[in-house]
């Protein structure tokens, strides 16, 4: 059991894994805070004020503009994340190789 834990620790301590964890966190934490604030902005503004009732273009209200902006935000954030995450997959292989190399040298 202890031995097995040591193997996991070995991967966790590789520089590639640390880089992966750090990069993911650096994207996910601000992105999540941003989309939650942006998302709840609509019900808060709509539930307590009337500022979204005016017309933006023709008969389209600001409420609809805000709503469509959420669609755009979802797609943009999704592609920003996925394009980064696909690059990070290399770090997984590097972490595996680093840990393997270490295990080899330890013998």
């Amino acid at each position, binding site marked *: *059991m202890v031995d*097995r*834990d040591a*193997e*996991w*620790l*070995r*991967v*966790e301590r590789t520089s590639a*894994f640390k880089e*992966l*964890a750090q990069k*993911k966190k650096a994207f*996910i934490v601000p*992105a*999540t805070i941003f*989309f*939650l604030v942006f*998302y*709840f902005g*609509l*019900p*808060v503004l*709509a*539930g*307590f*004020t*009337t500022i*979204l*009732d005016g017309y933006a*273009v*023709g*008969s*389209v*209200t600001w*409420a*609809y503009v805000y*709503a*469509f902006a*959420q*669609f755009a*935000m*979802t*797609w943009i*954030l*999704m*592609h920003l*994340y*996925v394009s980064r*995450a*696909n690059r990070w997959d290399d770090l*997984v292989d590097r972490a*595996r190789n680093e*840990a*393997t*190399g270490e*295990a*080899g*040298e330890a*013998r």
Partner: protein
Amino acid sequence: MSDQVISIVFFVLIIALTLIITAWASRRNVDTSHHYVAGGEIKGWQNGLAISGDYLSAASFLGIAGAIALTGFSGFYLSIGFLVAYLVVLLLVAEPLRNLGKYTMADMLASRFNTSSVRSVAALSTITISMFYMIAQLNGAGALIGLLLGFPYWISVIGIGILMTVYIVAGGMIATTWIQIIKAVLLIAGSLLLSILVLSKVGFNPFALFSQVESELGKEMLSPPPPSGLVAGLDVISLNIALVLGTAGLPHILIRFLTVPDAKTARSSIVTATWIIGLFYLLTPVLGYGAALFVGQKEIEEANVAGNLAAPQLAAQLGGPVFFAFISAVAFATIVAVVAGLVVAASSAFAHDFYSNVIRHGEETEREQFRAARVTAVGISVVAILLAIPLGSLNVAFLVALAFAVAASANVPVILLTIFWKRFNTTGAIIGMLLGLISAVVLVIISPNVFTGPSPEPPATPIIPIDPIFPLKSPALISVPLGFLGCYLGTLLGGRGAEREREQGIQRSYDEIRVRSLTGISDIEREIKQAAPEQEPRTT
């Protein structure tokens, strides 16, 4: 041909198509892994379509169009919330779940907490959520078939129940996935055609549609309802909490990420799903306003007080009886496919989590597990039918919203903390899930949904003639924080601490969970140690 005969022809065609898929899938449904997660062999785009199929349920297709037709902008909240929810799934849940799980959500929790109590509670919450969702779908299907073919409600429900049982027992997750894929394509095609018909009425100019809504139905249809006090405002926020977080806790969506081989495919399937779902939801105002303009709000309300038949009515108005029959058959396929996915989720929770791992302590043979999975699928279907028949008068959208609220309160906190919180322990997981589950259900019962008071505002009908104790219709504003609080307090007060649990062997080290969830390495001895000898020539 009379209209009813045309409808019957389309229904028979759809049923035949799904049965052919099931027959084909049954030859590949050979073991437990294929039965629960299609052997983890589903491709990214296929899974993306299947997720869309699972997600675009009767509530989305029939419910949102009807809600926009009758209430305008407020109905569109559902579309926004259901879509943005995929960011929670993509950024926080999907990849760790794929990397840690096997067949069910409880498997993922069990990869860290090795106790049968965590598994049992997770199975309980999965079954509860799936049941609410399933009753909602059966409800919608029964009403739809009743209207189209004139069968009594209970016959429709039993008919659907038999169909979905056949799909799952014979074809397992492979049949369910392909039925979802076909249905997603049909549903998108149908909605697109219907939207084109609506837009052709306004010179293919969406702005003209909005102008016509303003001039014929009034400005209120285009803006959120005017602020009317604290309770109403908080209720909107509470509903939105359930919508945006609930998806990440819905068992039948979560198990979709276990049908793909790795985290990268899980990601690409979310991209496909989010585009399809988002484009579909962009059509919902066209369908809803189209129905309000060309069918008429009065006629929609007369057919169904919640507006659930607005989309088929619109199809009849603009496309004639054949198109009406096609759209109705698609709506029917939608419901049957979603129910099938829910039965897989609920039966895997019972057979795999509870029976195999808790009662039999994982000592069953593969054959016994496979049989238990199929027997349970029949059992779950029967229970769902028995519950759906007496509950036929409940509102479809309300039941689905309840399922989302329970998922957001019971499952989401425990899933997130299992992945991200080092000190989390078994007591916290159990108390968090139970508190989220129980508080969501109890708050709904004492809310205006059930405690309607003696004379509620129409179209609501009195259920229990006591005035509501909890003022909000959606419980998430209170029950989601309670779910997190339960996890936190349970961990601090009741537990032995993550370190002690590790020493006792009931919790894996957080280092392992962290590495596994981020990298997808699952078998450390094989992947690291066996790889090592290849390096030996270099070191010696």
